[in-house]
Structures are given as C-alpha cells and as structure tokens.
C-alpha cells in the first residue's frame, strides 16, 4: 500500500497495473498544477501530508468505491513535495468491462479524496504564498 510518492507520477505504469483482459475501458484522471487559483497567479505548490494517515484514508476510500463499483479495478497515486505548473499532483486510473463504472468510480474517488485525505497545499505566486483553505 503506497499511494504517496515524492517522484513524478508515471500514469502509463498505473494504467498497465490495473488493466485486465476483461476490461473494455479505462478512465485516467490527473490533477495538474495550473497557473492560477481564485484569480491569483500560481507558480508552484508545496504538498504536505500526514503520511501514514493519508495512506490509510486513501485506502479506505478505494475500498468504499470498489464496493460501489464492484467491476472496477483502481489505482491511485498522490505526489507530495514541491510541484510546478504542468506537474501532476494526483493520478487515478479506473478500468472496467464497461465504461460506466470507470467513469463513475474515477469521479467518486477524486471527489472524496479531496474531502478527507490529510494532504495540504501551500500555493506560491508573485504575491506571496499561502496554505489553501486556511482563513487567516
């Protein structure tokens, strides 16, 4: 169980990891550092995590989603550390015999991972840096 990495994400390897000969579709989602947020320019994002808990929380979410989409195979990797515009922060791959489960499982995973997994980001732009979501 290692859903966290400090290295660039190899999405193609994730796809190869999940695909079975009975799968007719896969959906790959990647979250990517973009050059703006809430109207401010963004240059880089530093990702911090409560690592052992984040691992467990991602595994728990995968278990839940796998129960809801029982024919889907799932892989999730979140990158931590300092990322720049264009870098991928997360990759999620879901494969299934029919496409509906791939789409449904992939969307459910990213939505839930964003809600509860203890990962944080500090955005840095020309106007300074701040922890996203923290109201000063």
């Amino acid at each position, binding site marked *: 169980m290692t859903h966290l990495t400090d290295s660039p994400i190899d999405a193609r390897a994730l796809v190869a990891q999940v695909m079975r000969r009975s799968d007719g579709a896969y959906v790959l989602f990647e*979250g990517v550092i973009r050059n703006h947020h809430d109207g401010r320019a963004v240059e880089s994002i530093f*990702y*911090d*995590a*409560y690592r*052992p*808990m*984040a691992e*467990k929380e991602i595994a728990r979410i995968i278990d839940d989603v796998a129960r809801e989409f029982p024919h889907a195979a799932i892989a999730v990797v*979140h990158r931590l550390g300092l990322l720049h515009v264009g870098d991928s*922060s*997360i990759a999620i791959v879901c494969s299934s015999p029919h496409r509906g489960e791939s789409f449904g499982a992939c969307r459910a995973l*990213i939505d839930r*991972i*964003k*809600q*509860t*997994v*203890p*990962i*944080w*980001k*500090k955005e840095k732009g020309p106007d300074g840096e701040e*922890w*996203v*979501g*923290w*109201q*000063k």
Partner: protein
Amino acid sequence: MRRVKVRLLCFAVLRDITGRAETELELADGTRARDVWQSLRAQHGQLAAYELPPMTAINESYASPDQLLRDGDELAFIPPVAGG
C-alpha cells in the same frame, strides 16, 4: 493525579504557526482533544478564529474532539485539507 503522555503532530499551516512538527505532551488524565486545542489557541493568536479544531485525528483516524486522550495516543489537528 495520573498523567497521560500524548504526541501532538502539527502539519501544514499548524506547523508554520506553532513552529513545531511534533510535541510530547504530559496531560492530566481526563484531558480531551479539544482541551489541547484550546491551549494551542491560548498560545497562538493566529488560531483565535478557530474555536474548534478544523478536524481532529487520534492514532491516524478521524475522531471527535471530545474524545478522551489515553496514554500513548498520537494526536493531530487537521487543517482544511486540499489534496488532489
């Protein structure tokens, strides 16, 4: 009175504010997670706006801030998450 030893972990904005990633606490038996938060608030004005911790984790799982702390617990307050 009996004391319990608790390890407090601070991440992200809380680590920046407290200046520490990890603190060993010796607490009176019967202390709840929310009591630890109140003492952090008392020490750090930047936490004044947060009467309750955003979220609380005990031993790597989400927990109620009202949970009693036991000897050996690992306690973390979880600022608003922003993964993905």
